[in-house]
């Protein structure tokens, strides 16, 4: 775990509401694995107070890539920061994905959940695996990471809510017939993950969860999620958990 004042190298909108942020963060980039996250300070004064967790979406040498969606006050403030400025980063944090031997990676992403999976896909490729990425978004314009995946020769299939690209409907509709011999790596809204568990009961898999975080390091016990073994901390025990282990409400 490092605390680093990382210089912004690149920061731009890559799709409506989605931004890509590239940072010079040698200490953190050197140690980050897919599924891990950084905890990032968006302001300087007493408000907004807390850091924001963002998954590592890629790295190249000393550069760390983040990919985020502007959803509220903190991410809106982050969006105003310009190249050359520095951001206060804590990371890499949490436990990331681990490859399951003998099974090819099937990556299932919903919206901004694609961020950690882009990093995972690249690492899988580098390790000689054959990942396939399924991505569900609201509309065609929100497909991000496509060029990156294409450059690595990683296939991508898209579903959209409005049918403007790929199949109309949830990304889980793309699963049929694709589960054989695969291990699932997922990140997206709770509804997506719940459906995934229903559709792929026997398939081994891992999921990256989200929860509101204060400390990000396991100290405050704030980011509890329900698992078969009781409450666990998303920041320290996760964010990546076994798909089988995660318990949803209702």
């Amino acid at each position: 775990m490092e605390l680093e004042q990382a210089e912004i190298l690149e920061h731009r909108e890559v799709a409506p509401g989605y931004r890509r942020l590239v940072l010079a963060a040698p200490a953190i980039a050197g140690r980050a694995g897919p599924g891990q996250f950084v905890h990032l300070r968006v302001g300087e004064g007493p408000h907004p107070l807390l850091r924001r967790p963002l998954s590592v979406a890629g790295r190249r040498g000393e550069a760390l890539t983040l990919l985020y969606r502007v959803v509220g006050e903190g991410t809106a403030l982050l969006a105003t920061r310009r190249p050359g400025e520095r951001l206060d980063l804590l990371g890499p944090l949490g436990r990331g994905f681990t490859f399951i031997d003998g099974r090819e990676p099937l990556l299932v992403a919903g919206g901004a959940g694609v961020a950690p999976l882009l990093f995972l896909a690249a690492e899988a490729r580098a390790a000689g695996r054959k990942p396939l990425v399924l991505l569900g978004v609201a509309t065609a314009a929100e497909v991000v990471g496509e060029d990156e995946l294409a450059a690595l020769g990683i296939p991508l299939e898209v579903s959209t809510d409005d049918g403007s690209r790929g199949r109309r409907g949830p990304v889980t509709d793309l699963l049929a017939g694709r589960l054989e011999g695969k291990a699932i790596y997922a990140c997206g809204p709770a509804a997506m993950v719940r459906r995934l568990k229903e559709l792929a009961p026997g398939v081994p898999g891992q999921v990256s969860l989200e929860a509101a975080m204060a400390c990000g390091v396991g100290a405050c016990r704030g980011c509890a999620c329900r698992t078969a073994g009781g409450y666990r901390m998303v920041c320290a025990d996760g964010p990546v958990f076994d798909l089988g282990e995660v318990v949803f409400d209702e």
Partner: protein
Amino acid sequence: MSRLAVELAGIRLQNPVLAASGTFGYGREYAGLVPPARLGAVITKGTSLEPWPGNPPPRTVETAAGMLNSIGLENPGLNHLVEEDLPWLAGQGATVIVNVVGRTIEEYVAVAEVLDRHRGVSGLELNISCPNVDKGGLAFGAAPETAYALVRAVRKRTRLPLLVKLSPNVTDLVRIAQRVREAGADGLSAVNTLVGMAIDLERRRPVLGNVTGGLSGPAIKPVALAAVWRLYQVGLPILGLGGIATWSDAAEFLLAGATAIAVGTATFARPRAMLEIVEGLEGYLACQGIANVSELVGRAHG
């Protein structure tokens, strides 16, 4: 560093900057960034006789210049503390104050008795002010007589310095503190969190799984400072906390009457905040020509 050395309720501290209970875990989580030995003391997460699971999520939500938490005192229990955390903290050379919680007086007493024999513990902080549990916590701290009874019972079974952590959610803090003093406490911690809540407009339901939570962070600093100011008249040494984020915040608490201060929520935003506060106070004292930090204590009372 002797400029900063203080004694708080019989506990010798190399500096007056402590890690607040529940925000620094057992020291281990932040160890890479904040060596626990460089703090005045580490106050542990609230510790109960048996492990407690805590409240249903969500447990935290951000608010204007603050946050709400409804952790519900999740903790791995006394045995874990004694077997894992205290040895580790001792190995680090940290001064340790254990924050104690229970559902009944007997549970508080039982924890205190075990820790009384423990060399790695410099003092106890009785949490009678957690707003996030049904039994225990604020149930004892809301009235002078229940607070008295609890402190008295624990006092009989331990010679360790005893701090009692008070809630700001009361009409007459001073009255409670006086009874706590009469029960034999060595010092007061002020304050714990304020009761608050947030509502999720989409779901039209409370955000927190436990409905209400405790408000902490810069937002509550003025309330905490006023509490310390008023408690100064009680005559017990005070550990001041609530919203402290900078050395100048810390100095305000000292001037209001706190002998030492603790930093909670600020650590989440700036993990090294406590170390920066130590440096800041050191620099302030040097530049004002003040030989020891205790000279500031209570000075704003004129």
